[in-house]
C-alpha cells in the first residue's frame, strides 16, 4: 500500500515526536523548579527543627548564654501580639481605603491612590523599619512593641486596600441599585449590603497580608528590637519569632542553632496555617456564588 501524501515521512514524524517530548519535559522541569523550594524548605525545617521541638520550646523563656535548653514562648506570644497590633493599624486604614477606592473615589483620585499603593507595596520592608524608627523610636527614646506593630501595620495597609477594592468591585452593581431603590442611605448600602457581600474576600485579603508580615524581620530590627524576657509593657521592646531566629542563627552556639531551626519551623507552620485558612475561605465563597 502506498503511503498517503498527507502523512509526514517516518523520519520527520519521529523528529517531531522527540521535539514535543523534549519541550514538554522542559516545561515539567520548570514547574517542578517552582514548587521544589517549598518542599526543600519544609524538608530542612522538619529535619533540623522537629527534633528540637518539645514542650519547653513553647513554654519557656530563652536560657542565658551557655545554658542548654529553654524555649521561645516569649517570641511566639510576641509575634502574635505584633500581628494583632499590626491588624489594628492595617485593617481599618486598608479596608476603608479600599471602600473609598471602590465606591467613592473619582477616576483621577483613584489613579493616584492606586499608584501610591502599588509604590508602597514595593517599598523594601527595611525602609518601613527605618521610617518608623525615626517617627516612633527616636522621639520616645526607646524601642517598643508599639513601633513594631505600627511598622508591620503600615506594610499591611496598601495590601489590604488593594484586595478590598478588588473584591468590592466584584459585587454586582445590581445589589447596590436594589438597595438604593429601597431608599436606604448610601453609606448603609455600602456597609450592610456591599461590604457584607464581599466580607469573605476582605477577610481573605487581611489574612494574606498577615501571612505576608508574620515573617518580616527587617522592620522589627529598628522598632520592636527583640527581648529575651516576657514583655509586660507595650512601650518596651518585645520579642518576635523572626527576630529570635535571627539572633540565634548568627550565634556561635549549636544549641541556639537547633532552636533557630525549631523557631523557623513554628513560624512556617503559622504562615501555612494562615494560607490554609485563606484557601478554606475562598472555597466557601465560590460555592455560595
Amino acid at each position, binding site marked *: 500500500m502506498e503511503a498517503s501524501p498527507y502523512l509526514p515521512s517516518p523520519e520527520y514524524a519521529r523528529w517531531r515526536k522527540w521535539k514535543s517530548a523534549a519541550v514538554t519535559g522542559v516545561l515539567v522541569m520548570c514547574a517542578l523548579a517552582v514548587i521544589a523550594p517549598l518542599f526543600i524548605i519544609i524538608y530542612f525545617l522538619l529535619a533540623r527543627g522537629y527534633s528540637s521541638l518539645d514542650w519547653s520550646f513553647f513554654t519557656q523563656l530563652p536560657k542565658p548564654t551557655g545554658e542548654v535548653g529553654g524555649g521561645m514562648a516569649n517570641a511566639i506570644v510576641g509575634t502574635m501580639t505584633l500581628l494583632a497590633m499590626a491588624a489594628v493599624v492595617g485593617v481599618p486604614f486598608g479596608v476603608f481605603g479600599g471602600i473609598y477606592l471602590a465606591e467613592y473615589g473619582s477616576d483621577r483620585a483613584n489613579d493616584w491612590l492606586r499608584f501610591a499603593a502599588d509604590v508602597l507595596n514595593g517599598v523594601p520592608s527595611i525602609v518601613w523599619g527605618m521610617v518608623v524608627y525615626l517617627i516612633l523610636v527616636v522621639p520616645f527614646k526607646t524601642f517598643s512593641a508599639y513601633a513594631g506593630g505600627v511598622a508591620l501595620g503600615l506594610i499591611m495597609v496598601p495590601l489590604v486596600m488593594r484586595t478590598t477594592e478588588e473584591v468590592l468591585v466584584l459585587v454586582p452593581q*445590581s445589589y447596590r441599585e436594589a*438597595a438604593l*431603590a*429601597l*431608599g436606604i*442611605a448610601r453609606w448603609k448600602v455600602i456597609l450592610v449590603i456591599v461590604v457584607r457581600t464581599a466580607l469573605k474576600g476582605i477577610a481573605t485579603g487581611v489574612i494574606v497580608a498577615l501571612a505576608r508580615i508574620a515573617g518580616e524581620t527587617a522592620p522589627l530590627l529598628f522598632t520592636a528590637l527583640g527581648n529575651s524576657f516576657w514583655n509586660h509593657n507595650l512601650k518596651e521592646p518585645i520579642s518576635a519569632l523572626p527576630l529570635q531566629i535571627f539572633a540565634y542563627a548568627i550565634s556561635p552556639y549549636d544549641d541556639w542553632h537547633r532552636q533557630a531551626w525549631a523557631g523557623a519551623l513554628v513560624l512556617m507552620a503559622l504562615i501555612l496555617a494562615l494560607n490554609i485558612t485563606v484557601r478554606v475561605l475562598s472555597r466557601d465563597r465560590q460555592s455560595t456564588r
Partner: protein
Amino acid sequence: MSILPETAQAPASVEPIRVSATPAGAPAANLPIEAEEIAFDIRNFSMWYGQRQALQDVTIKIAARKVTAIIGPSGCGKSTFIRALNRMHDLTPGTRLEGSLKHFGDDLYGPGVEAAVVRRRVGMVFQKSNPFPTMSIADNVLVGLRLNGLHDRAVLQARLEESLRMAALWDEVKDLLNRPGTSLSGGQQQRLCIARSLAVQPETLLMDEPCSALDPIATAKIEELIQTLREKYTLVIVTHNMQQAARCSDRTAFFYMGRLIEYGETRNIFTSPSNPQTEAYVSGRFG
C-alpha cells in the same frame, strides 16, 4: 415635540391636576378628560449621558393607581426614563438633566431633596431578580425597613407577612422564611424582590422589564400580581413585550430615539395609533 402642548403655560401644580382638552389632532386627545390624580407630572424633561442626549423634551402625566406601560425599541430611552423617576441616575457620573419632574406635586430633583427619600416613595423592581445573597427570605423583605430605622419586632413581623402576601409569595415561602433568598426559583426571586420593594410602602412602583428573564408561567404570575397591585399603587412598567403591555396596562407610552412619540389609552395605542411610527412598532414592522 410636546404631546401635551397646553402644559407649558399651565398653572404650577394645582391638585388634582386637570387634564384639559387638547388642540384637535394632538395625540393626547386619546386621554380621558375627567379629572384624575396625577402621580408623575413631567415637563420638558431631557437627559444626557456625557455628550449623548438620551431623552429629549419629554412631557407626560402619569396617572395615579393605574398601570402605565413604557414601550419602544432597544435604546429608545425607556429605561433611562424610568430610572429618572426615582433618581437611579444620581450615581452615574456625567449625567445631566433639564426640565421638571414632579411626583404627587413634589419636585423630585428640587434643591435639598434627598434621593434616598425619593426612592422610599418611588420603589423599583429590576430586570434581573437580585435578592441579597447574604440574607434570608425574611431579611430580604425587611432590610429596607430595618436600615431605615424600624426595629419593632411585631411591626416587622406584620409587614413581612403583608408584603409577601401582596407579592403572592406568602403561601410558597411561609415555612422557608429563614432560607437564603437566592434558594428560590427565578420567578419566586422576582416576587421576593417585589415584596422587598412593597415592604417600605412606596406610593409608586417602577418595574424595568420585570419579566424578561422569566418563563411564561412565572411571567403570568407577575402579570396577575400587577393587576392586584394597581388598586393601591401607581405602576410604571418598561416592557419589551407588546402583548404584555396590551394585557396588563391602562396607558401606554411609546418612546423612540429618546422622544415620547405617543401616549394614550393602551387599547387606542394598540388598535388605532395616531402616529405612523407607533403603528409600525406595535404592528411589529420594526423594533
